[in-house]
């Protein structure tokens, strides 16, 4: 499953340490939510980066105390129809000010890339290699957005008003 960051396919440096498997030393790891919360102090004190896989039915508010010590939050799309992680992503970015890697995992498909980017995701475990190949084109499909979003894009209403102001300024000159 290719990992896409910055529009390109990159190597995934992170090792998943699921359930009770030992956490390897000196390498970046991703651990499940329960494990992070049970063992947080020890895990964040390691010398290597740590990330968490956070399920879509758990409040991200619980994660808030640890966010500044996490380098990856991986949110989960059990199917692409289950959109709960979009809300979690926006909350992490907009309410809790998380600036680390926000990774989409699970059923991550081409036709969702732009929604994901706009909700604040910046890393994507893409399910189909063919989709990962065309990430940049798929992510640029729409150039017009009506609402403010976590990626900082300028919504149409603001662009309209800016255009109107610019026109008035020109007329005034």
């Amino acid at each position: 499953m290719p990992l896409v960051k910055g529009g390109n396919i990159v190597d995934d440096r992170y090792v998943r340490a699921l359930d009770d498997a030992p956490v390897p030393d000196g390498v970046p790891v991703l651990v499940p939510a329960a494990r992070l919360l049970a063992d947080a102090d020890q895990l964040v004190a390691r010398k290597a980066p740590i990330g968490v896989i956070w399920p879509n039915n758990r409040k991200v508010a619980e994660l808030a105390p640890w966010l500044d010590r996490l380098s990856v939050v991986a949110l989960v799309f059990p199917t692409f129809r289950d959109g709960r992680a979009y809300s979690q992503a926006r909350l992490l970015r907009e309410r809790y000010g998380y600036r680390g890697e926000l990774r989409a995992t699970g059923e991550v498909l081409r036709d969702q890339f732009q929604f994901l980017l706009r909700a604040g995701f910046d890393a994507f475990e893409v399910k189909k290699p063919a989709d990962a190949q065309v990430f940049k084109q798929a992510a640029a499909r729409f150039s017009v957005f009506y609402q403010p979003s976590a990626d900082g894009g300028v919504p149409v209403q603001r662009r309209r008003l800016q255009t109107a102001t610019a026109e008035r300024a020109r007329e005034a000159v």
Partner: protein
Amino acid sequence: MTTAPVVKTVLESECKRMYLYDDFDRTLVTERVAEFRDQVARRLSGELTEDEFKPLRLMNGVYLQLHAYMLRTSIPYGTLSSEQLRMLAHVARRYDRGYGHFTTRQNIQYHWIKLEELPDAMADLASVGMHGLQTSGNCVRNLTTDQWAGVAPDELEDPRVWAELIRQHVTLHPEFSFLPRKFKIAVGASAHDRAALAIHDLALRLHRNASGETGFEVMVGGGLGRTPFLAKTIKPFLATRDVLSYVEAILRTYNEFGRRDNIYKARIKILVHELGAEAFAKEVEAEWRNFKDGALALDPAALAEIASRFTYPAYARLDDNPPALAQARRADRDFDVWMGNSVADHKIPGYAIVTLSLKPEGGTPGDATAEQMDAIADLADRYSFSEIRVGHEQNLVLPHVAQRDLPEVWRALDAIGVATPNVNLITDIISCPGLDYCSLANTRSITIAQELTRRFRNLDVARDLGRLHVNISGCINACGHHHVGHIGILGVEKNGEEFFQITLGGKADEDAKLGALVGPAVPYDQVADVVEDIAAAYVELRARPDELFVDTVKRTGIEPFRERVYATR
């Protein structure tokens, strides 16, 4: 004749489209067509399975029905320009079988489109700013409102401005495009509810509070289907500045807590029911407080910009009830009957709102041929400032007809078969497509409607029965809104046979109610007889000739109707 030049000026001005799309809107719609073209190509090449293609096509209003793909096209707020209606006629002719079907959600559907031609049909629609964006799928659907918005004498202000503000906000929303289930929003702004607010997932009713400020009553959790609920008020007065943030808080709460384990329990109505309206409101309020004063607080300049793109006709200065009109009514009984039935008051003196019945005897409710659509577009250009409306009762409306033109308009409408004076009468039936088209249906519904229009073809009989809404659904999904029909007819399957449950007393207006079952289901060939029995019982039971059917049912209850229907069955 002295005011004829006024009409001409308007025709030649930019009034051709009632909501003026700008480059931003056009770019989005064009990009959407390009995206869909790519998705269809991937489906045809096999790169996408039907399973993967399904949610993508659904987001563009494309369904797979019994015989073919169906294309649903959005008509925001039911407002159409003549140019757009001509394009709908073109699509019917070029890509379908020469007709289209207007729906209870103020949309149009084409039932016979070929998959490989869909992108071209969409590109043609996009050329006049039309699209199927969010007309299906588990997202916020196209918003609906009063089909008389902007012309109704009893409205506080034009609700379409608010609906458009919200429509833009939820279009391709990055957070709310994969909700547990579909989400329908309606906006109303008049004393008399013509938008069926109570049966929507979210309804916003604009009203004035005691201190004279306008704001919204917020109602959530309405919906029909197999578990019908009327919407409950969770906030009696929401300041208009907070409308987007509050809608966002409701959607976020629903996205988080709405059930995803069972498609039949995934609508917000189930969440509101299981949690209780009060607890749901608490969740929404708590979420809302986190961001209510942020980027979504209403920007008056943005609202003014949206309002400025709704154009209103340059009405002539005319008097109400011109003498020639009264004379024409006296001279021709048929015209007089039609006037009494299909013409309503307009907020501007000298003008009228004209409803075009798409319910002729033996017809399919809501169907219009390409020829009819073209002719109606021409009439709109001549007599209604190039504007047409679509109502949720599946009829069309010419919203700005000068009263002095009514005799001519009537003759022209009659000539194309859309002047049946049965608006709001027993033959003005709302019906879903049923088993003739729909893969979900258990029974036919159109043929029941057709039979009823034949049984009650005598207009004097239908007029004597007064306002009487018959709503028919061919399955429990309730697309024909049977729960809120004065007489509701629901098709069910029993041992492979078509049976029908009949309910009485439902209403979808400001006094909304769900109908009550009159008794055991009856077989297909008895439905029209039962409706005749119910009508006869009403005539005997009504307290006065002008007591409406639905008021008689409310007063007497179901029992006397039950006795009458089942005495001989």
